[in-house]
């Protein structure tokens, strides 16, 4: 009971008050300081609201275990099934990205490398297992899970990663296995996933001690669909010239659609963001001051160097107007349908970009590059994300040949700065930009 009170208070009363006080102090300390001149346009007002939303989520998470059922969930898991049961959901990938931005990954990774995990493993997995092993997190504290929920539509690593978590915490692990899609998923693939969804519900009900209310279930699906639609609209504003924000802004603003999908707070946030972006389009305000070239980014960002890289590009007038990664949450999420809950969820989550063959991936990149009028693309060959990086040499050739755009393959990692050689890497970026003349 006490735990529940702490949880509710942190989310609704104390947390918001604390954040407001912090914001007030920040503003006061910066009063009178001229805004920094840089290659970027004026910062997004919504960014403050985003910070508040995500900080509250993690603050509430500190008090979640013992108050409500807690699930740790992979980014591609059909969370619509857990929300109606009142789960607090923690996304280790989203949290690992926070650690990446905070540049604590080498330390966390060292901790698990000592336990025998290889540095060749995904840096998200190493970060998360490192947080669990050391208890170190920028969020203060992570709630212990009652359920681990994993879907193989993003990679196979998640299965072994979550198995390690299940051993550590001694809690049930549910797995949704999605067959890899060549062309389009066959009816028997969808049926196979659907059956697993139905099985999953009974486990989740047992863990949460609640039954799924069909009305609430349908309402969550409708909200998730609307959230993905809103997110897609936000991304689509960057089709304007100049784009009102940068693709790198998108990497941060995607946090709610990943971690809070299906909640009203998520949708409210994207309505706010969409308003602001449309307003910027109307005023002709760009994400960068002088947009000379428009680029597509493929794969995850390098969380530890987002700011440095975006500055490097922006200084020369290059803006990333779209990314296949942020687009992923706008593309599959809208396929869920309250009229066919299980069937549509099975279909939607099987058609995640990383679960599709190279022809489909090329199709997505080609469409993005055309829709957003890109004159170049950077394909991040991510040492940690093999499913996303495989085939990029062919993707590079095909994009270059078919669209006549310049394409750079950049070798790095999404979370481990030790796999990024800054000097040669930045040299390649400089040469790539010079080749635009």
């Amino acid at each position, binding site marked *: 009971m006490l735990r529940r009170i702490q949880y509710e208070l942190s989310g609704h009363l104390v947390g918001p008050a604390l954040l407001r006080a912090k914001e007030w102090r920040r503003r006061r300390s910066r009063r009178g300081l001229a805004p920094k001149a840089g290659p970027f346009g004026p910062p997004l007002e919504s960014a403050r609201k985003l910070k508040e939303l995500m900080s509250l989520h993690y603050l509430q998470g500190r008090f979640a275990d013992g108050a409500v059922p807690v699930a740790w969930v992979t980014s591609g898991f059909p969370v619509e099934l857990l929300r109606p049961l009142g789960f607090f959901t923690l996304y280790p990938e989203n949290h690992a990205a926070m650690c990446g931005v905070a540049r604590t990954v080498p330390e966390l990774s060292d901790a698990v490398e000592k336990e025998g995990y290889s540095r060749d493993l995904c840096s998200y997995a190493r970060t998360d297992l490192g947080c669990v092993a050391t208890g170190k997190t920028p969020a203060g504290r992570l709630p212990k899970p009652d359920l681990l929920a994993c879907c193989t539509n993003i990679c196979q690593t998640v299965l072994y990663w979550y198995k390690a978590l299940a051993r550590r915490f001694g809690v049930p692990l549910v797995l949704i296995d999605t067959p890899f899609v060549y062309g389009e998923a066959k009816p028997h693939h969808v049926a196979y996933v659907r059956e697993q969804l139905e099985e999953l519900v009974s486990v989740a009900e047992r863990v949460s001690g609640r039954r799924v209310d069909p009305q609430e279930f349908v309402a969550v699906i409708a909200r998730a669909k609307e959230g993905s639609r809103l997110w897609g609209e936000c991304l689509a504003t960057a089709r304007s010239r100049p784009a009102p924000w940068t693709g790198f802004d998108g990497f941060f603003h995607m946090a709610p659609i990943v971690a809070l999908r299906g909640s009203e707070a998520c949708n409210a946030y994207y309505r706010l963001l969409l308003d602001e972006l449309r307003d910027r389009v109307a005023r002709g305000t760009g994400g960068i001051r002088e947009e000379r070239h428009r680029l597509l980014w493929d794969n995850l960002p390098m969380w530890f160097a987002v700011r440095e890289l975006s500055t490097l590009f922006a200084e020369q007038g290059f803006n990333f107007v779209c990314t296949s990664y942020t687009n992923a949450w706008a593309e599959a999420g809208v396929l869920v349908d309250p009229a066919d809950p299980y069937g549509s969820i099975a279909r939607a989550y099987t058609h995640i970009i990383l679960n599709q063959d190279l022809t489909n991936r090329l199709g997505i990149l080609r469409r993005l590059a055309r829709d957003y009028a890109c004159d170049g693309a950077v394909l991040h060959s991510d040492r940690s994300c093999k499913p996303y990086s495989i085939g990029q040499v062919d993707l590079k050739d095909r994009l270059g040949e078919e669209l006549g755009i*310049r*394409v750079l393959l950049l070798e790095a990692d999404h979370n481990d700065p030790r796999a990024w050689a800054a*000097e*040669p890497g930045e040299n*390649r970026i400089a*040469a790539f930009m010079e*080749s635009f*003349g």
Partner: protein
Amino acid sequence: MSGAAALGIDAGSTTCKAVAVDEAGKIVGRRLEPASPRIDEQASRLLAELRTEVGGDPPVGATGYGRKRVAASRVLTEITCHARGAFALLGRPGLLIDMGGQDTKVIRLGKGGEVLDFSMNDKCAAGTGRFLEVILGRLHVPFDEVAGQVRRAGRAVSVSSTCTVFAESEVISLVARGEPLEGIVKGLHAALASRVAALARVPDGTELFMSGGVALNPAMVSALAEALGREVHVVPEPQLVGALGAALAVA
């Protein structure tokens, strides 16, 4: 002397090169030295020498890893400069392989000499001039004897590793096993060429050019030609191509 139109400097990882070009873009003065850790001092000295030699105070273009340490009116990457320099000398499109000390670059040149695409060796120095330098040094083979040794070699001894560190120990065990030195040297060239060939992926009907310090090694040029299955044309004064491109960028 009527004075130069521009100076170019290529502060590379192994050598520092500087050239002066006239109005027609022809090299009229040149300097080449092993790279000093004090890049800025070395660069200003070489440029001052060229200024004295050709007269005047022409603008300076800089490239190479040390380019940011050089006082220059324009700073460009080696990729852009090698492309520009090679095209100025050759006047036709093709695939340019620049093998330098620290990296190997494969640059696709368009009809007007523009960079259409490029690829480079991954983060390590395998497949670069440094690889040969380290291992030939270990075998006590002086540079001017390399080509002769490779010519004399019967068969190439297979060297499987292209990691500079591992190849060094592999080569030592080959020597210990009594393999002929010439064969090992030939094998090293073949290993390196196959690595570059994988990077190059040459489309049919494309002419191949080579620049950079390694192009002065005829054994490497023929190993590349063999690995890629076609003739490789060495750009005149291959070591100076980057510096020439830098000069032309400000001329």
